Structure formats: C-alpha cells, structure tokens
C-alpha cells in the first residue's frame, strides 16, 4: 500500500501559505485573541486570562476613546475635503500650463518626497510660539503683537496639524486628478462650449464627471492614510497638550507601549481598523458608481 501523497496544487501553494501564515495570519489571530485578554507587556502571564468582551465594553464606554475617534473622523473629513479642493485647483492650473508642465508636475510632488516625521518637525518649528516662522510673520506684518500658542491651544493645534497634513498630501489629489484631466478627451469640452456652457457649467457638467473617479481613488488612498495618522501628530504635539490633539493611533500607541496595556490597545486597534474599512468601502462604492457613469474602460 502506498503512502498518502498530498495533491500537487496543495503542495505548490504550501510555501506561500506558510509565509503568509507566519507574517500575517498568525499575528492577526494573536492580536485578535489578545484583545479578549487583559494582556500587559509587563505581565506575560496575563495573556492566558480570557476576559471576554470586557476590553471592548470598556473602550466603547470610554469618553477618551470616543473623543480621539471623533477627532480622527473630523481630521479625516476636513483634511480630505481641503486637499480635494486644493488638489483640484492645482491640477487644473498645471493642466493649463502650456510650458514647463513636467517641471511643475515634479515640483508639485515635492511634499510627498519628505518623511512625515520630518514634515512634523518642520511644522513644529514653524508653529512654535516663540521662535516659529508663523508667529514671526504675523508679528512682522503687524497682524498681532502676541505670541499665538499654536501648538498649545487645542483647536489651534488641531489646525496646525491639519495644515501639515494638507501640505504634505495635497499633491496626492493633484497628481491623480491631473492624470484624469490629461486622460480626458478634449472634444466633449469643446462640444459643451459650443452647446452654450459657461466655463463653470463646462466644469460642472462635463469635466467633473470625468475626473470624479480619479478623485475617489485619491479619497480612498488618503482616507486610509489619515485614519492611521500618527507620525506628524506624534512629532508636533504627541497628542497633547493634555490629550487635546489625541487621535486614535496616538491613543492606541500610548495605551500599548507607555501604559503597556496591549490587550486593551489591540481592542482599540480593531475598532480603528473597522473605521478604515468603512471609509474604504464607502469610497470604493462611489468610485465604481462614478466609473460606470463615464463608461470607463479600466
């Protein structure tokens, strides 16, 4: 009697499955499991105590968590809309350029070439209340004689972070929308002009439907980005002062590493990921609707 031989497809897939299991599946299961335990990094044994949904119940009733959650959603909404508008404007300007368009395109992408950590440091310096460029400029222009506490006041600090985010990522929108504008056939625009459209109507009824899918791709990418915003905030304010700029992931990392409550942090992380998934699904729906509408062939 011959020994059992596993079928060839199974054998061939096995290496990939093993690698995936090692780097994705097992950590995922482990982290999900630990979110049901009171696991603390300082007490390894706590990993084996199951406490059911107590971590989830705790964060869902925690005002601090919800504040960070709400602030993240707010940052996401505001940043995406501002970036969208600025990116659209930039793209349309660059598209109009008859000369030096390639150079402009490259320059436009500069902010994307810097590490977010460095962007954080740069804006932290610029918004510094004593030696920052922003206060210096405002005072030199005579707009104020006070040192505005940009990174200390809660809403001002949120604004400062928003500015840094927008500065570093508007080009994502600009580049994608520019790609859309360049790919778009010119005749429908001319037809619209002859059909009696003002420049605004041409944009509203012809150009915009064309570039909408590109905007939604940018939205999808950026919503994931902002939902996991961490680096810029970590550098500029570290969620402070006194948690006034705490976002989901600064809160999660603080809980996990400073407070060493890994189980609780994992539970938060799963809720945060849920948020990301919701946004992604939402924008993907919008994207495919927009694509069908312009009968895109991609």
């Amino acid at each position, binding site marked *: 009697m011959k020994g059992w031989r596993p079928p060839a497809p199974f054998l061939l897939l096995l290496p990939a499955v093993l690698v995936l299991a090692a780097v994705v599946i097992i950590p995922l299961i482990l982290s999900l499991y630990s979110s049901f335990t009171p696991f603390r990094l300082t007490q390894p044994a706590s990993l084996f105590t199951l406490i059911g949904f107590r971590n989830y119940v705790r964060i869902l009733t925690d005002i601090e968590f919800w504040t960070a959650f709400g602030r993240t959603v707010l940052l996401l909404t505001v940043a995406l809309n501002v970036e969208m508008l600025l990116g659209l404007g930039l793209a349309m300007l660059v598209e109009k350029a008859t000369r030096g368009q390639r150079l402009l395109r490259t320059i436009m992408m500069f902010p994307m070439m810097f590490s977010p950590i460095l962007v954080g440091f740069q804006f932290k310096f610029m918004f510094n209340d004593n030696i920052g460029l922003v206060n210096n400029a405002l005072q030199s222009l005579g707009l104020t004689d006070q040192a505005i506490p940009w990174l200390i006041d809660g809403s001002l600090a949120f604004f400062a972070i928003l500015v840094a985010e927008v500065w570093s990522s508007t080009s994502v929108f600009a580049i994608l929308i520019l790609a859309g504008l360049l790919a778009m056939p010119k005749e*429908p625009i001319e037809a*619209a002009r002859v*059909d009696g459209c003002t420049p605004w109507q041409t944009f509203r009824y012809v150009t915009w439907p064309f570039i909408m899918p590109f905007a939604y791709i940018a939205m999808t990418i950026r919503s994931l980005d902002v939902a996991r915003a961490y680096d810029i905030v970590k550098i500029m304010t570290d969620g402070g002062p006194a948690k006034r700029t705490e976002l989901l992931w600064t809160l999660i990392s603080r809980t996990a590493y400073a407070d060493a409550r890994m189980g609780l942090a994992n539970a938060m992380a799963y809720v945060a990921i849920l948020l990301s998934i919701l946004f992604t699904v939402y924008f993907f729906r919008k994207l495919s609707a927009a694509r069908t509408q312009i009968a895109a062939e991609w």
Partner: protein
Amino acid sequence: MATVSLEKLVKRYGSLEVVHGIDLEVADREFIALVGPSGCGKSTTLRMIAGLEPVSGGNLKIGGRVVNDLPPRARNLAMVFQSYALYPHMTVRENMGFSLKIAGQKPEDIAPQVEEAARTLDLTHLLDRRPSQLSGGQRQRVAMGRAIVRQPDVFLFDEPLSNLDAKLRTQMRVEIKKLHAKVQSTVIYVTHDQVEAMTLADRIVIMRDGYIEQVGTPEDVFQRPKSKFVAGFIGSPPMNLKDAEIADGQVVFANGDRLPLPARFRDRVTAGQKVTFGLRPDDLYPAGHGIHSGEDADVHRQDLRVILTEPLGNETLVFSDYAGAEWVGRMLNPRRLSPGEALPFCFDLSQAHLFDRESGRTLRG
C-alpha cells in the same frame, strides 16, 4: 438662420500664419463645403467660426454681427465633431437635451423637442442608452440630433463622416442631405473627401495652404477648375496632368509626342509657352467605350498600350502609356483587357484643360 462672412480672416499660432486672410460670404441657408488636403486650414477656419480658436486678424460676422471676440455660447451655432464628442456620462436623451437644459429651459419643454429630433433621426428606441452602448453610426446620429435640437443659426460639421466605414458613410451622406432639406439652415461642412463635398454642397470652397483656391458650385469646380491644384484635387480618379509646351499650334510633350491644341485655347496661348495639359479620365476612353461631348472634330484618336486595368464592374479604369507617362482612362461597357494590349483611344479635347506651368492658373478665360 444667418449669413456668415469671413473678411480677411487670419489665424496665427505665434509667428506661424496658417490662414492668410481669406474672404468668404456664406448666404443664408446655404450648404458650403470646405475641402482641401490635410493642413490646408479648413478645420482651423471652422474652429474660428465656432469660436474654439481665437481670430488673429480680420473680421468674422454671423448674421451681420461681428463675433470675433464672442465666446462660442454667444454665437448660436451647433457643431458636429469628427469624434462625435458625446458626453459619455449622459444618456442619448440627456446628450440631446443638454444645450436646452443649459439654456435654462424646463424639463417638460425639453422632452418634446428631444423626441421630435429623435424621430427625425430614427433614434427613439435608443434614447435611454449611453454613448458607449451605441455603434459608430448611431453615435453620429446622436451628435447630429444634439445639433438639431438647438435650432442654431449655423450648423458646423467637422469631418463628421471620417470615422465611419464606407457603406455607412454613403448612407449618412444621404441623411445629412435630407436633413438639410428639412431644417433649412446655413451649413458649413469641412471634409477632405471631395465626393462628400460634391454631393452635399451648394458651393464648394477649395483651400490650400491657408488660402482659398476656388469657390464655386460643384459643376464649376469640376468643369472649370481655376488652377492645376483644383483640377487635381476634385474628381476621382484625378485628372491626368502632364507638362507640355506649345509649338506649331500643337501641345508637345517632353518626349516629343503631340496632341492638337484644343480649339478653345487657340487664342490664349503663344508658341513656346510652358503649360500643363489636363484631361479627365472620363475624357480618355477606348474607342467605342465612352461618350464624347463635343464635335467629332475635337476627338483625337491614338493607339495606346494598356499597362494595367482596374475593373470596377460597371466600368474599368485603364492605365496606359503615352507621352512618356502614365494616363488613366475610363472605359464604359468594359470588356476584358490584358496588359500589353494596344487599342485605339479617344482623347476628347473639347474637355481638355490647359494651365500655366509656372502659376498653375487656368489659361481659359
């Protein structure tokens, strides 16, 4: 309904001038075709009329009003593009009603107009489709429908049939002609296809290198071409054009072959004059296989050797060798010919043309 006047109209791109001050009067309800080879400025001229290209010099008037600096929307035109330029995200209905919607008409007023145009163009069953679900010919009809719905003063067509296959093109040509008869509007039609121009237009404008070569009715430009260029451009297959000299009251070709000087040119040429002799394929036919138009005396008979034939069924194009060059003739009631065969040909000289070799202008009065 409106007239269109071009007065010394110029188009420049930087220092490059592509349209050199052309003059043209288009009458109300006239169907004008602009023809010419690629790069002759016909599309640029049309785009200036549409307002899609700024006018660099001269005046452009529509209905007597100077419109040089008016945007397209203030000119009340409709344009049909070569690529159809439909709005891909709108249904046929929305495409056709778009200009009315922009003009601020109410949906209940737009619907009957769109349906009326759709009936005219046989598009009723397609009204709820999107352009991507239509064939080329259907898209073309939608583009025309979009133009009709506007009830514009002037229709502009920019090579509207170039993207269609030959059969559909013939069909749409008839549709356009019917349409013009029905809507009775001024039409300016750009094409590089001289057959389209001949069959559709009241008058044809032949352009070359940014100048107008000739303006005239289809009969005019076919029978009385003002220049060698027009003679070679209009007509298919093109006119046989061969360089020659006048000597002893005859047309003498480079290799010494001679043809009698056509009667109507006798007083218009001098001995030794360098000319270009032109004869349409219709006027060069194997004896007994063509119709001559004038007196028998004007027909010159000559034996020619056949090089090649192109049988088209009802007629055959015969390529033969004469005066050291290749000549195309048209054989009616054709019989089978074999290359190398020699047979008597008729040159119908009452239909021949002579052009000045230098200037290319015709030598007839």
